[in-house]
């Protein structure tokens, strides 16, 4: 059996790596509370909690506006992608139809294709439609990218759902539409939540698309706003730190409450496969 010594070593290893993961994050949070304009003192504890950096970032850095844009984009993408992915996942997971394999492989491609591989024509195509520099340019492509994942995710769930559940509902008189929404979706709630959480995170954190598509300041998402803010305040560490905390906060809060979903979703390859 493992001795006490071994166990202690394990804890030391785990703790040190956890500390390494935590230190830079905690450091930036601490820096945000340092007196404005100070050098942040290499992530040391502030003598008292100064909120002035947050106040200044909020007003001067327009973070209220950035957060609002991010929220609009993220909520739209999550809502539409979820709805549409549940439907397509249902079809792939429970119905038989000609071309289902080909269509599914097509969706699979979307899990691998990098945004870098399509952002250029996306920009020119959307510009031709006068959609660049609108929320649409951020929302529509991200729905497209998310439904590839969502379809795959929900299909896997519906495939794993006992067939008899669907059949029982069919015999009970439910049609396809009611089977999906009244029997399967309530049952799938945890899987749906995991999917929503992941899509939310990806959308919230997306940078390249926003950088390419948006030029008006009022449309900047939080990460894009922070990037510009960084450009303007390169040397003001405490102010930058406050901005960074504001940008990361929503996603971290969701993570703290729903971390099981984050982790399960992101490492699910080993579970689903």
């Amino acid at each position, binding site marked *: 059996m493992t001795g006490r010594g071994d166990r202690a070593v394990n804890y030391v290893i785990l703790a040190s790596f956890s500390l390494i993961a935590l230190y830079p994050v905690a450091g930036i949070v601490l820096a945000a509370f340092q007196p404005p304009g100070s050098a942040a003192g290499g992530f040391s504890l502030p003598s008292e909690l100064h909120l002035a950096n947050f106040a200044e970032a909020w007003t001067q850095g327009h973070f209220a506006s950035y957060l609002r844009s991010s929220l609009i984009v993220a909520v739209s993408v999550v809502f539409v992608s979820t709805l549409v992915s549940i439907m397509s996942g249902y079809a792939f997971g429970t119905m038989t139809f000609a071309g289902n394999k080909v269509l599914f492989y097509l969706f699979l491609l979307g899990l691998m294709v990098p945004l870098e591989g399509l952002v250029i024509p996306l920009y020119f195509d959307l510009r031709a439609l006068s959609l660049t520099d609108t929320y649409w340019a951020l929302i529509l492509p991200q729905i497209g990218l998310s439904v590839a994942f969502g379809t795959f995710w929900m299909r896997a769930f519906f495939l794993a759902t*006992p067939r*008899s559940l669907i059949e*029982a*509902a*069919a015999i*009970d*008189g439910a049609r396809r539409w*009611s089977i999906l929404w009244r029997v399967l979706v309530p049952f799938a709630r945890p899987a749906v939540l995991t999917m929503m959480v992941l899509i939310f995170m990806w959308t919230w954190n997306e940078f390249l698309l926003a950088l390419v598509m948006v030029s008006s300041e009022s449309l900047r998402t939080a990460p894009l706003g922070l990037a510009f803010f960084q450009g303007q305040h390169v040397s003001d560490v405490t102010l930058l730190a406050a901005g960074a905390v504001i940008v990361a906060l929503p996603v971290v809060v969701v993570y703290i409450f729903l971390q099981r979903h984050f982790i399960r979703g992101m490492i699910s390859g080993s579970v689903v496969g």
Partner: protein
Amino acid sequence: MATVRFEGAGKRFGGVDALVDLHLDIEDGELAVLVGPSGSGKTTALRLLAGLESITSGHVWIGDKQVDALPPRDRDIAMVFQDYALYPQMTVYKNLAFGLRMRKVAPGDIDGQVLTAAKTLGLEDLLERRPRELSGGQRQRVALGRALVRQPQVFLMDEPLSNLDAKLRTQTRVEIARIQREFGITTVYVTHDQIEAMTLGRRVAVMRDGRLQQFDSPKGLYDRPANLFVASFIGSPAMNITEGSLEHAGDGLAIAFGDHRLAVGRPESRPDDGIGAYAGRKVLLGIRPEAMADASLALGTPEDRRMTVRVELREDVGSDVYAYFEGGPPVSNPGLAESPTGDDDEAGGNRRRTFVARLSPQSKAREGDAIQIAINDRALFFFDPDTGVRIG
């Protein structure tokens, strides 16, 4: 209430025939059992009836309605699934009510019907629970309740007891029989367990390889099995099967197998059974374990209906004594049902050579003893060695 009728029903999956030309007439209010090993087509037949699979050929009737093209919801049936398939996120009440709500039953009526069904099954106290909070037996009853609540024309049951432990299985079997009789709803019940089939079914359809072998009352199957498969599938322990040759013996016939020879009787004493035509030929012989007796306890059995054997193994289970001995040569006929437990593989060929007799607990036969086994002439079954069809 309705009759159920399979009219040459067939089903192909890919290139494989899952069900071939099934003809079956089930009477109104009857509990009919489809039994057979896996892959026999019994479940396919049930799913065709339910509308969960489309039919490849032939027709299915419920009452006077041909239902081939109707979706499950329009067939007025209810089904109990092997895994129960309860809606996990709904309470018991909502599980029972779901079918009624889908059928747009007035809300006031739903409550009454759910409560009636719950009362019948003793589910009153569980109505607010969710399936995961219930025991296996309770889930099973909810599944029954969900079927019962709609008062359908036909009940379909797909191995409903296979997830229960042995004791609960017997209890629930009785419960199903009671409810079925009480409501008189035509029921089609699928199982792989021949004991379940025989105790529950008014008539039992024995299936194999997608084909119906025989549809008869349990007694009919036991006394007049149509072929080697039915004979070896029905009964526990399974019928002893061996190969022998029919010979003329005086003005009657005798069957010789292994070291034994038993009188069969005169052809004319077995009218219409065509056995005479097999005189002088090889046949397959079947003897049920329970048709054999310790001759010392069955005095008066004539000498030519006894065989002397050496007991190799004695198993005393209290109510019966099982004696194993060398019978006739083993038979590997494709018509034979595989032993459901599959345990004859362990002991290899020897075990298959061995006959088993179910003797009275008074039997004093010990291992190593040479004893006489008495056999009733009527308990001998003969099968055509090529077709497996019972002779007679």
